């Protein structure tokens, strides 16, 4: 069966979402994954946006978290304060799974979405945290989308925008953060998780057609590949959902 790598990534993420989860979404592929999950594994998951929309009825794909499409028929339309409080608050926050992206990630899952090079005179400036640092600070589980390229998996991020496990076991708690941290990094080549003990990234799954070694070749730091298995490709049903129900206009995929 034919499928694109973006479709594969989307399905890998969708499978990480459990029924009843409150899914913090950005736009693009992360949103498509959250929308797909509602048809696949998690019919009662709730999509919500940092702008304050909760359980939006997404008849069309929003291009921004402030897109009027997120406002339509939501359970409530609040504002930024309410949205982030939902995550900072342990009562609702513990039910949230975040989906983030970044320009760089290190082996502890720390993210850079601010700048490459010097902070004051960067080679490349990106958008900055937005709500990413907040989400990464607050919620117990995070999925991270990345493109697998050496420069995007450096030994040290140029700017630490959003906390992963900082510098290893116990570091989040010591710094003052809530427990939590990234649960999976989903790239165009495979899916990585973090070791329970060391908090270091390891390869959990490689996609059909690639190899653990090829993945290592695309990272600056080394990860354990001993636990890696081949990922299960998207099913026909999953692909139909993506293509027919979630993004029929092909805005994202």
């Amino acid at each position, binding site marked *: 069966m034919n499928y694109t790598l973006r479709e594969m990534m989307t399905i890998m993420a969708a499978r990480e979402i459990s029924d009843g989860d409150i899914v913090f979404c950005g736009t693009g592929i992360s949103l498509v994954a959250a929308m797909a999950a509602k048809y696949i594994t998690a019919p009662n998951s709730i999509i919500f946006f940092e702008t304050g929309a909760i359980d939006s009825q997404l008849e069309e794909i929003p291009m921004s978290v402030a897109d009027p499409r997120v406002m339509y028929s939501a359970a409530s339309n609040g504002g930024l304060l309410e949205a982030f409080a939902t995550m900072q608050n342990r009562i609702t926050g513990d039910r949230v799974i975040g989906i983030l992206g970044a320009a760089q990630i290190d082996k502890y899952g720390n993210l850079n979405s601010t700048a490459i090079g010097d902070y004051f005179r960067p080679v490349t400036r990106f958008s900055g945290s937005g709500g990413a640092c907040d989400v990464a600070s607050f919620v117990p589980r995070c999925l991270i989308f990345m493109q697998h390229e050496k420069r995007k998996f450096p030994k040290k991020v140029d700017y630490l925008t959003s*906390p992963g496990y900082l510098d290893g076991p116990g570091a989040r708690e010591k710094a*003052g953060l809530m427990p939590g941290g990234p649960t999976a990094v989903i790239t165009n080549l495979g899916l990585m998780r973090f070791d329970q003990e060391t908090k270091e990234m390891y390869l959990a799954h490689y996609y059909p057609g690639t190899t653990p070694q090829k993945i290592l070749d695309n990272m600056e730091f080394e990860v354990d590949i001993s636990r890696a298995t081949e990922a299960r490709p998207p099913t026909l049903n999953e692909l139909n959902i993506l293509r027919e129900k979630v993004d029929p206009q092909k805005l994202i995929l």
Partner: protein
Amino acid sequence: MSADQGKVMALDEAIRSYVKDGCHISIGGFTLSRNPMAAVYEIIRQKIRGLHCYAHSNGTGVDELVGGGCIAKLEIAYGGNAKSAPTCIRFKTAIQRGEIQFEDYTNYQMALRFHAGAMGVPFITTRSSFGTDIVNKWGFSKEMREKDPKIPDNKLVVLDNPFGNWGNASKVILIPAINPDVTIIHVQKADKFGTCRMMGLAYADVDQAKAARNVIVTCEELVGSEELRAEPEFNQIPFIHVSAVVPIPFGAYPTACYRYYDYDPQYLSQHSAFAKVDKLYREYLDKFIFGVKDHQGLLNLVGKVQLEKIKADPRTGYATGLDRK
């Protein structure tokens, strides 16, 4: 100001009265929705300089203010604008060239800073950003902060929880309040005294307004007070916070105004193409901003056909089926 007229003003007069060179400013909206674009363009048109701007994710508006040369200092959480500009292009360019001073926060932190300003406390608490460069890297130096009474002495402060482990928190981050000299927001409905009714998401507009010394409200419709007062619980901003009210249909264009019109994907993607090249961006400013008298002039250049395309569907509140590729 007569009672008959309330606080209604022309836009150029409101901007001239409340937006001065070097003043501290914030604008409402978020990325491509409900930015007070007519006001932003008027600020550019009036060549106001040296603004100190506070932004969470005020994509379109802040990027134009940067591109228009109005901003000297920027405290910001997010300089992105969806598909047409994942990183806002004039923002990116200005930082890479060292043309503006800037400092990074998170969206929640910026929202909280306005909240603290509205509340009238010097700082507020959060548990976001421990261990990150948001805390460790300051855009404004300690020296600069101590010299300028309009900038707090610290960017952020980490404090041990004085209530023991209450709330299961060993530490908190204290973030300083923002009280802009002026905040400009665009709303769906306002009365002539400035009471506002927003539809759809409010983002951080309410706190941005209540934190500011002066507030300019631009609105799609100027409505009678009795209409708004029939359901006071749904009016987010009472008139006591507002200095000027400016009715401007399509005042958020090219960003969206829920239940009135969608964002204009065509304008935004053309804008991105212009913004990537200095010369083209100057031509864009010359034609669309300086080349017209006011916002209606810009709308005339865009044309009725295009504006018709983005008109909101009464059921969904946006332009259903709009071509957004």
